[in-house]
């Protein structure tokens, strides 16, 4: 009931924003004593009581302009993002019927550390790539701020790391969840990491024993953008995968709670659909959200195990639990691929604990366990992760723990493994375009990848910002790639033909997982969730 109430209030507010008064014009300039007019400063406006924040970026002359009509008459709180600076003022503006022009003044911050992204901490910390590599896992649950502000020495870090290893990977600071099955962690590796972390935090003194490095502010085309944030009604909501439907509504999986979320971006109205709990006591929340050929949504149930199908007409769930023989305390389904299930009545998934693939038979409701790595050396870690299916329902999957793209022939079951060009690349999420090209991220290699399923060949591109660790990538209708991740607070737009890229800085700390591009708009519209920030994010490039 409270959700409907919230939706009604939001809808009323948004309705007022859209219709009351005249189209509003809010413009302004950004200046500081140090730089004068400032390019690349993000200016955000949020009406009091509204869950919607709109952000624009100042241009080379320091000027900014909110899209005409986007802001209704109201009292708006203002905030900025510009590395090294804080807002002097104004901190609010009253928009009435007349056009409003404001002068936004900034001053140098005395607390640069509070503004650093994970990427910037990575850049700043001393240490070898091998020492830093384990830290890319930390971002799943929290930012580096917790690490670098801690005062633990190596000995004190040890039990902290041991404890965290037993948390479910669908854990956030707002909702910590423990695994049912204890996970084995090697003490020598924990000690090694603890010793390193104690060299980059505040255990030795009140300041960091290294210089803080920062990334430049946006400029040029990276300032031609409008960003809209939709706050979700609870801080515990962790939007993971996001996609739009034919009506333009946004659907998202909640990584830590058993709800499927729906957002109407026109009104801001928000609704949740409770997913039946399958395994009481196990961590809740879902990960992969995919559509089948009929437009119905499928969710991978993580530690709740199995899959869920959401009927978009009746708005009801059909559950597909894993049979008892395959279920145990460690069982986990993170991925689902129903795209071509109409071909053979089979839906692909994975069993994380067994490093294997699952295939659901929709007629019988039973899963088949497939070990795609059975002919490879046994001592290696593998993890089937991001998935795509072609028209014949042949599966392509990413080996997230290693460096492979895999294929399983739907008819014969024959597995083909394709090692990526870069070793230890850890391919993560993927999409298959209509030309048979598999676009994917190489999480650990800081690259975007292409696997052409026709020629069986790879291409790779470095992402422009070091330590971005891209999570996902989406090819839009114009042949441009869109990507995001958990480290840089930036959305990457990359043209693989020219190698040119634009990075749109986001208004606040943003933990991006699955990304989605709505090709029905011109220019296209980028969508993602802020997994740690309880918000849905829309990025509208202006060119």
């Amino acid at each position, binding site marked *: 009931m409270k959700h409907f109430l919230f939706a009604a209030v939001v809808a009323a507010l948004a309705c007022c924003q859209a219709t009351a008064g005249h189209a509003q014009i809010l413009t302004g300039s950004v200046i500081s004593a140090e730089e004068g007019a400032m390019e690349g400063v993000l200016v955000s406006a949020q009406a009091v009581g509204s869950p919607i924040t709109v952000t624009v970026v100042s241009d080379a002359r320091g000027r900014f302009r909110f899209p005409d009509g986007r802001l209704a008459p109201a009292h708006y709180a203002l905030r900025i993002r510009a590395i090294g600076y804080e807002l002097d003022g104004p901190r609010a503006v009253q928009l009435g019927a007349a056009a409003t022009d404001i002068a936004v003044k900034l001053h140098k911050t005395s607390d640069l550390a509070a503004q650093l992204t994970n990427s910037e901490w990575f850049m700043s910390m001393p240490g070898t790539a*091998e020492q830093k*590599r*384990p830290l890319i*896992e*930390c971002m*799943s649950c929290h930012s580096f701020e917790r690490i670098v502000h801690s005062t633990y020495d190596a000995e004190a870090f040890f039990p902290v*790391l041991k404890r*965290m*290893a037993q*948390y479910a*990977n669908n854990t956030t600071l707002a909702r910590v969840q423990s695994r049912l099955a204890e*996970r084995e*962690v*090697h003490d020598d*590796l*924990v000690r*090694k*990491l603890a010793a390193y972390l104690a060299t980059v935090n505040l255990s030795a003194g009140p300041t960091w024993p290294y210089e803080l490095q920062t990334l430049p502010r946006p400029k040029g085309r990276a300032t031609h953008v409008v960003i809209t944030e939709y706050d979700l009604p609870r801080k515990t909501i962790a939007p993971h995968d996001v996609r739009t439907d034919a009506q333009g509504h946004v659907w998202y999986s909640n990584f830590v709670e058993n709800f499927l979320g729906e957002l109407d971006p026109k009104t801001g109205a928000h609704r949740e659909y409770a997913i039946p709990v399958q395994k009481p006591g196990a961590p809740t929340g879902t990960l992969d959200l995919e559509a089948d050929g009929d437009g119905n949504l499928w969710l991978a149930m993580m530690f709740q195990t199995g899959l869920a199908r959401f009927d978009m007409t009746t708005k009801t769930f059909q559950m597909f639990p894993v049979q008892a023989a395959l279920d145990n305390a460690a069982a986990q389904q*993170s991925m689902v691929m129903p795209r071509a299930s109409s071909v053979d009545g089979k839906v692909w998934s994975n069993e*994380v604990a067994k*490093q294997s693939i699952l295939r659901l038979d929709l007629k019988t409701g039973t899963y088949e366990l497939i070990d*795609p790595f*059975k*002919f*490879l*050396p*046994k*001592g*290696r*870690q*593998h*993890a089937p*992760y991001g998935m795509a299916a072609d028209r014949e329902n042949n599966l392509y999957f990413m080996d*997230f*723990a*290693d*460096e492979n793209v895999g294929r399983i022939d739907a008819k*014969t079951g*024959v*597995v*083909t*493994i*394709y*090692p990526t060009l870069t*070793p*230890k690349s*850890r391919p993560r999420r993927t999409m298959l375009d209509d030309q048979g090209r598999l676009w994917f991220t190489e999480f*650990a290699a800081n690259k975007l990848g292409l696997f052409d399923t026709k*020629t*069986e*060949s*790879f291409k790779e591109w470095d992402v422009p910002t070091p330590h971005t660790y891209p999570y996902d990538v989406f090819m839009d209708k114009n042949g441009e790639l869109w990507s995001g991740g958990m480290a840089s607070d930036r959305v990457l737009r990359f043209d693989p033909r020219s190698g040119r890229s634009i990075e749109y800085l986001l208004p606040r700390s943003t933990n991006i997982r699955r990304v989605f591009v709505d090709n029905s708009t011109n220019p296209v519209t980028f969508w993602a969730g802020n997994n740690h920030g309880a918000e849905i994010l829309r990025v509208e490039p202006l060119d």
Partner: protein
Amino acid sequence: MTIDRRWLRVLLVAALIGVVPTSSHAGGVGFGEDDANSGDDGPSYFGFVREVDGPGVADAKVTAALKDRGALVTRTDIMGVYKIPGFGKDINPDDVVITCAKDGYAQANVQRRPRDPSDTKDPVEVECYLKRK
């Protein structure tokens, strides 16, 4: 100038060792538990893809296949060299079939160099020859 075959083999093996991937950990918190090369590795496979009596063929597809079970697929570099990490030690290298392919070519023949059968990790050198169609 010709390169002594033994040295070529040494160079190829050295290159192979340099690129044999080391394992990484599965999703979630892993604390860097990678680089755990196990004793379960079978031999790797490497060699040239060449035109018959000609130069190495770049960007040729090379498949190491286990009949009806699966395959590892890679492509040659600019010199025509390929390296395939290999299967588990329970796989008999004699059951692994190496083939090569490229548009405009047909496979002519495959030559497998003799190896020490007592050394289960001795890399398997296989040269694959293509002829223009």
